[in-house]
């Protein structure tokens, strides 16, 4: 039996903390164990910090955005899943660029939060619809080059289709849909600021065959992405 994933919740509204805790309790497999809750980040630095695999982090604590604190948390060895009422694409991108594993908006919480925590604990990509939206909206000059297939899978996923429906629409398997979406996410992990969490995510993606090392070189990715290759290797999950 696999060890349970330990998680801490940092959230300034107790009602939300309670809600998240109830989703964790409701997981049929009881795969996640809540070990710590806090209303701010003060206890998560220093020697006496709690041990947890993943932090569920509300991006706005006492009225202030805490995206700039994510690199510190990642450096301290935590994996961060951002959980926020803000779904503004720029904030989502900033959060991921800072080294968060995944981004879950508050509307997506009940369906996606536990799964995102589990994926983060395994350093696997987890792309919510709000993350897909942010990737589709991304116009920054340094953004990674995504293939047509990756873009199409992200678009249909953002639009609200299930992954099975996306597969039907694109005439590919559901696993290949996951692969395209994960590959897009992995390409993002390879760009922007460096963070140990992004390296871990990328290493795992390579190990899982989601992406090949050659596909993440910033300047070769364009030609390769244009070649539009289908799924590679074994599916990740």
């Amino acid at each position, binding site marked *: 039996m696999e060890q349970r994933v330990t998680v801490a919740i940092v959230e300034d509204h107790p009602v939300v903390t309670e809600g998240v805790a109830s989703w964790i309790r409701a997981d049929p497999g009881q795969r996640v164990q809540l070990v710590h809750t806090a209303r701010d980040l003060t206890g998560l630095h220093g020697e006496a910090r709690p041990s947890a695999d993943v932090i569920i982090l509300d991006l706005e604590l006492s009225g202030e955005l805490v995206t700039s604190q994510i690199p510190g948390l990642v450096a301290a060895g935590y994996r961060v899943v951002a959980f926020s009422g803000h779904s503004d694409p720029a904030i989502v991108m900033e959060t991921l660029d800072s080294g968060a594993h995944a981004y879950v908006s508050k509307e997506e919480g009940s369906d996606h939060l536990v799964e995102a925590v589990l994926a983060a604990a395994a350093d696997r990509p987890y792309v919510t*619809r709000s993350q897909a*939206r942010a990737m589709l909206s991304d116009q920054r000059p340094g953004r990674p080059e995504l293939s047509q297939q990756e873009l199409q899978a992200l*678009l249909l996923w953002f639009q*609200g289709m299930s992954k099975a*429906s996306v597969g039907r629409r694109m005439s590919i398997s559901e696993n290949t849909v996951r692969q395209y979406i994960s590959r897009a996410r992995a390409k993002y992990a390879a760009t922007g600021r460096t963070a140990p969490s992004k390296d871990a995510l990328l290493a795992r993606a390579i190990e899982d065959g989601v992406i090949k090392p050659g596909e993440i070189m910033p300047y070769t990715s364009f030609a390769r992405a244009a070649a539009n290759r289908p799924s590679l290797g074994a599916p990740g999950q």
Partner: protein
Amino acid sequence: MTDAQSTTMMSGRYQRAFTIAVVVLVAGWHLAGGGGQLLQYRPDYASFAFQAVVWLVLAVAIGVGSVLMLRGSLDWRLAWAIAIVALVASTASAAESPAGHMLAVNWAWGSAGWTAVLVLHRRRLAELAWFLAVEATAIFSVQVWDGLDRLDLAAFLALLAWSTGAQIAVAAAVKALDAAADRAAAAARSEDAARERAATAEIIQAARQARWLALQESTVPLVAELAAGADPGDEQLRVRCAVQAARLRRLMAEGDELPGSLVHELHASADVAELRGIAVEIETAGVLPQVPGPARRVITDAAIAILTAARSQARITLATVAAGIAVSFVADTGSVVLLPAADQGVAIEHQQDGGTLWAEARWNNG
């Protein structure tokens, strides 16, 4: 460009013209007035060379002041630095002029005063007044030092009245013209705004007319049927009512003339569905292009058809795609929905997965 910017630009042009006029006046005075007097009384000065140097110092001060003034980079420190140079030059020239008929040969009082007008005329009038008062006091002190008599005093007062009066008058006139230019620009702007409003009103009026005609075709017959005793319990009739309610709401939204009006119109369609208890999410990705009115209608018609059929929830997304926009709908319609045909550059595709309908209306730009 905003209205405020255009007003500033317009009055800015006038102000520059006034500045140029002041520059020409001051330089002209220094050359012809000051310079002429200096040459005319050349033999009378204790040292003509000294007076010539002072004249050159003032010429440089006027030159620098003019350039800075025209560039608009004359802050109060520079303005006062130049004014003080002029004050010192004028006092030194007076002190070096022959006692007795100093006022007749003194060219520098006027030139220094005009230099101050040049650099201070866009500042408060009081600053120029202070400068001129201090300058006059300095000249008067030199005279007292040289031994003042009644004739000197009379000449001093006459010159003071003439020279200082003219300088204050020029500065005040520029201020008045500036204010007039501001008012003229503001008036022109409000005239432009009025013309624009009239044109907009005409467009809105035409759009209203078109919407009223559209209502005649769809809603009026339905209301007439209801009035004639159609059964409101009939499922078919209720669906038609829901569709017309959504269309009415859309017509109102179309009149709001907001930017990003497709999103706005879709929100309006969603409002009606929400009143029926359908949870509708609307999300956008990317910077959406403007979609022309007829194409928007095809898209919102599809939205109305799908939202009317939705049982409990619907998600609408708008995303920028290569050559236009993809508006998609995912809703638990349960069954196939009759969607509008492709038209006005909008292509519509759909896929039914169990009870969930996915549909996408794509509009391509050109």
